[in-house]
């Protein structure tokens, strides 16, 4: 499958860029593009930001996920405390990042 030229992958690895994640996702949507976002390692703390649920709702189940192992490593309960806006199916592995690289025509790290 060729990468979708209208899809923007956002790989979130830092815990301090929520305003950029939201700003870029919103701007992409406004421009008619589709954001696809993966949160890993310490960026999973951003799931506790009050703005996370709206971001997750906007992206939809197929286009936003977090690393379940990272969530557990950071002390959260990946079974009993799934972040607001996500389902259990969005508690993923690094394979989601691989899919993001394959599917997205454009890509940014935050």
């Amino acid at each position, binding site marked *: 499958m060729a990468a979708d030229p209208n899809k923007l992958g956002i790989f979130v690895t830092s815990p301090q*860029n929520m305003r*950029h994640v939201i*700003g*870029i996702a919103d701007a992409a949507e*406004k*421009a008619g593009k589709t954001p696809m976002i993966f949160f890993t390692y310490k960026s999973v703390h951003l799931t506790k930001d009050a703005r996370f649920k709206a971001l997750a709702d906007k992206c939809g189940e197929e286009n936003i996920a977090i690393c379940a192992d990272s969530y557990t490593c950071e002390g959260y309960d990946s079974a009993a405390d799934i972040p607001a806006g996500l389902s259990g199916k969005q508690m993923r592995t690094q394979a989601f990042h691989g899919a993001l690289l394959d599917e997205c025509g454009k890509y940014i790290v*935050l």
Partner: protein
Amino acid sequence: MKILQVYRSEPNDNVKTLVGILNRDRDADEFSLNVESPDYDTLVAKIFAADKTVCWW
């Protein structure tokens, strides 16, 4: 090849060296996120105009 360099903070000497090598003989653009109110619309337009984006720390 169009390459876009995005900075989340002021680039240090290592980053400047790497950017210099990556940009050599290429159509290079840049964008700073290290401002109070980044223009995300402009950033997204630049990302989609570029072949490759590198977003530094």
